[in-house]
Each structure stands twice: as C-alpha cells, then as structure tokens.
C-alpha cells in the first residue's frame, strides 16, 4: 500500500514539474511565434525612438528607458530602506513584537496593485505635482515611488528572514570578542546574510520590472525619453504600461499586435534571466552559510 502511494506521489510530483516546464516553454514559444512577424519586418529598428503603429514604426527605446528608470528609482528607495527596516525588525525589535510587525508587512505585500495605483493617483501624484510645480504629477518618479512601496515588503521579509536565520552563536561569539551591537550587525551578520539579501533584492527587482497596473496609472504614458534624460520628473512609458494600454486596441494578427508581443518577449527575457540568476546566486549562498 505504502509503495503504491509512494508511486502515486512520485508520479504526481513529476507530472506537475513537467507541466510547469511545459507551460513556461509554451509561453516562450507563443510569444516568440507572435513576435516573429514584427521581429522579421522591423528588425533592429525596434531599437529606435518612434512608436507609430499607423506607419508601422515600432521603436521601443523609450519604453525600455522608462522600465529601467522606474525600476532604478524604486530600487534606490526600497533597497536601503528595506534593509535598514529588516535589520531593525530582526536585530533590534524585541522578538515578541517582531511577529506582529512582520505580519503587518506581509499584509502589505498582499494588497492588489490596482489599490496602490488608486492611492498613487489620489495622494502621491498631486503631492509630486505641487512639490515640484508640475502640470501633471504622473511622472517616472511617481511610478518609481509607488513601485518602491510595493516591493518594500518583499525586501523586508526576505532580508529579515536571512538575518534572523543566522544562528545565535554568531552573535554571541561576536559579543564575546567585544564587538558593539552595531558592529555585530555590520561586521558579522550582514556579511553572512549578504547573498540572501542580494537574492531578496533581485526578487524585488523582478517584481518591479513586471508590475503593470500601478505603473500604468501613474507613469504618464507618453512614449518619449525625457530631455535631458535625467529629468525623471517627466511623464514616460514602461514596457508593461505600454502593453497594458495597447494590447486591447491592437487587432489580433496585425503587425501592431506582433510588435507588442515582441516587447513582451523582451520583458520576459529580462525577468527570466534575473530569476535564474537569483536562483543560482541563492543556491551558492546557502552553501557558504
């Protein structure tokens, strides 16, 4: 009986593994299949500025720029803030409060992104507009700030886990050698958790790249690179916001639709590379600790 169950269990696990792999491959294949018309006709003109489906112009540079800019802003805000918060929850906050704070943070992670978008429109965007005297508060920076808030819980929980899982004896040994509490964090704990923290950041990066709803509502949705390019308080466009807006209005089978698939393919490549990179990196991290 047990052997039988074991076989079923094994089969089940194997089947679901193969299913996952198959689905991933299928997604890749379909995207590529649908991108092919655009890729073959437009070719390297994909990497130009102008996007005008009426004239069969499909330049994605401004969206690529927007995606990278928004993600960079989000990371710039969320990474230091997240790591410092995690150090606080894991190392400074008494343990009996830690779980409450952690559940609150994890609750944040569960809020649908459209809600963040609404709050962005109601609160952050007007605030940015007044603060910098802009006609519209929907800018790359606005989207970046919102995105930062959205990825913060991921960074905090994973970094907190990474720190908290370090055996107590490392702290005690360091204390016994005469290190001050902040030196224990800085010299002992962070170096040990380094790889796992990097993993947390990469995971958050993946989420930031793929986030659509909130970004679409807040980024301004104009296909251009600001001038000068570092003036990020201007509206822009990301790959996801572009897709979110235009997929519905493009005719299936048209070159326009194919071009949208192509930028989707680009995004997928970016995210998958990151995910695999993260996993390889994390696995090494587990080995050294």
């Amino acid at each position, binding site marked *: 009986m047990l052997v039988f169950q074991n076989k079923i269990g094994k089969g089940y696990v194997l089947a679901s593994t193969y299913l996952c792999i198959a689905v991933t491959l299928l997604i890749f294949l379909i995207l590529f299949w649908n991108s092919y018309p655009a890729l073959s006709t437009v070719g390297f003109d994909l990497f130009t500025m102008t996007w005008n489906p009426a004239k069969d112009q499909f330049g994605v540079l401004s969206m690529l720029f927007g995606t990278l800019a928004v993600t960079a802003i989000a990371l710039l805000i969320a990474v230091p803030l997240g790591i410092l918060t995690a150090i606080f929850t894991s190392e400074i906050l008494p343990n009996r409060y830690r779980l409450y704070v952690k559940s609150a943070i994890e609750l944040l992670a569960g809020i649908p992104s459209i809600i963040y978008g609404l709050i962005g429109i109601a609160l952050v965007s007007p605030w940015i507009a007044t603060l910098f005297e802009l006609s519209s508060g929907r800018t790359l920076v606005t989207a970046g700030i919102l995105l930062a808030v959205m990825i913060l819980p991921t960074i905090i929980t994973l970094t907190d886990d990474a720190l908290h899982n370090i055996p107590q*004896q*490392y702290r005690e*040994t360091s204390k016994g*050698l*005469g290190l*001050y509490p902040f*030196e224990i964090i800085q*010299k002992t704990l962070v*170096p*040990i958790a380094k790889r796992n923290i990097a993993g947390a950041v990469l995971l958050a990066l993946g989420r930031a790249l793929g986030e659509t709803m909130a970004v679409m509502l807040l980024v301004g949705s104009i296909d251009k690179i600001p001038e000068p390019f570092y003036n990020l308080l201007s509206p822009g466009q990301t790959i996801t916001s572009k897709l979110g807006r235009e997929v519905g209005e493009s005719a299936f089978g048209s070159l326009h639709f194919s071009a949208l698939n192509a930028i989707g393919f680009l995004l997928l490549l970016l995210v998958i590379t990151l995910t695999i990179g993260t996993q390889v990196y994390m696995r090494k991290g587990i080995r050294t600790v």
Partner: protein
Amino acid sequence: METNTARKINAGIEEEAEVSIKISNLNVFFGVNHILKDLSLDFQKNKVNCIIGPSGSGKSTLLRSINRINDGTEKLKVTGAVHFNEKDILNGVTNLTQLRKDIGMVFQSPCVFPKSILENVIFGIQQHKKLTVSEKQDITEETLKAVSLWPEVMDRLKDSGQSLSIGQQQRLCIARTLATAPKVLLMDEPTSSLDPVTTRVIENLMERLKKRYTIVLVTHNIAQAKRISDQVFFMCNGQLIESGTNDMFFNTPKKEQTKSYLKDETCVCR
C-alpha cells in the same frame, strides 16, 4: 571588601596563589527564577579553575556573569560584586568592550565565521585597533602557534575557516580569543563537541595556556576536571557546595553531596 581584595591582589606575589577574579555574594535572577544564590568564590591566576556540577546548576550563568555577556537579556537581574583588575565590573562604569577583550570566552561548539582562517583569527582584535598587514600576519602566526594549529594551516591561511575539522575549528576559536590579548579565558564546555583524541589536544593546550592566562573552565566531565584542574568548584542548584584544590576535592571531599556526585553524578540539593 574592596580594599581587602586590592590588598590581596597587590600582595599576590608573596601569596601562594594570586586571585584573578573575586566574586562576592553574586545573585542572578531570570524573572522570578533565582539562578545563582549568593555565590562567593575566588578564581586564581595562572590556574585552571574548574566548575563542575549537574546540568542546570548555573555553571554557564556564572561564567557568563564574568564577562557580562548575558547583559541585555530580558528580565535579568544581577546583584553582588565581581572584582577584576581591582575594579568591581558589575557596579560602576565598565567599558564592556574592553572587559570582553580582557576576559575572553570560548564556547561549547566552535563558531567559525565564513571567512578565511586569517580573517577569523584577527576578527576580534581588528575591532579594537587598526592593524597593518604584517601585524595581522604576526598575530595570526603567534596565536595559531599558541594553540598548536600553525603547522597544520600555515600554508592555507587564505582558505575558509569552515573547511577545518571540528577540533581544528575549536582551536581556531581559541586562537581568535587569544588574539585580543585577554588575561582570563572563560571556557564553557569547550571539548563537549569533540572526540576523545581532540579533547586531549585541547586539554594539553589548556595546561600550556594557564602559564599566561587565568582559565575558568566549565565541564560536565568529572574525569576531565580531575585531569586538568588546579582548583575545583562544585555547584549544584545555583549554590557553591564545595571547592578546593584538585587533590583535596577529589581525594578528601567533605560534603555528602560532593561524595555522591563524584560517585555517580547524582546530586540532591535544596
């Protein structure tokens, strides 16, 4: 009390044994639990001072009161006095970092950082002062020689410390503690995670180290205490039951509890 201690320390040269750490009326509470009960005892300089007693009797707590590593634990309350270097380190201003540099600690299971052997050795001392590359080398060589690890690792100092065997790791930990130039070594069951052969290596090491350091050793192992201790302190249920020199303690124990503990490691104490 204070002047008495000072005189004793000053006069230590004439006396047969010099007191390194003097503990007077030490009480430790965790919340409502009274863990150490009015302990008064002296640890002698350049001796192996051995604390034995059943599990839960407060041996570790006593040891950990000496470098105040329990500080910050919730609901901890400590009263009494611990004199070291003519100063009461429990009361009055104490620089804890300096205290822990002077009173080093070695734990039960070796805790090697995921760094190179050399970086492990200098990890503690590096936080106390800036070191040049050659000083780092010198300290590493000197302390690794002191723990007899040098021949085994001299040409792989850049390798990860965690690649060493457990016994080597424990010696590395001792070297790391020695590098901060302590006067006292607190060792909490330093051989309990080691095999008998490695245990002997560490015991021989302690015999040599006591010429330069005061060693306070906690052990579960009565045979080990008999082998290497100079002074023995028998604790039970947070009290000091009996103490004396190795010879006195093991050959002519006075208290019934001590006799029964030495016979079959049982102890009834209230």
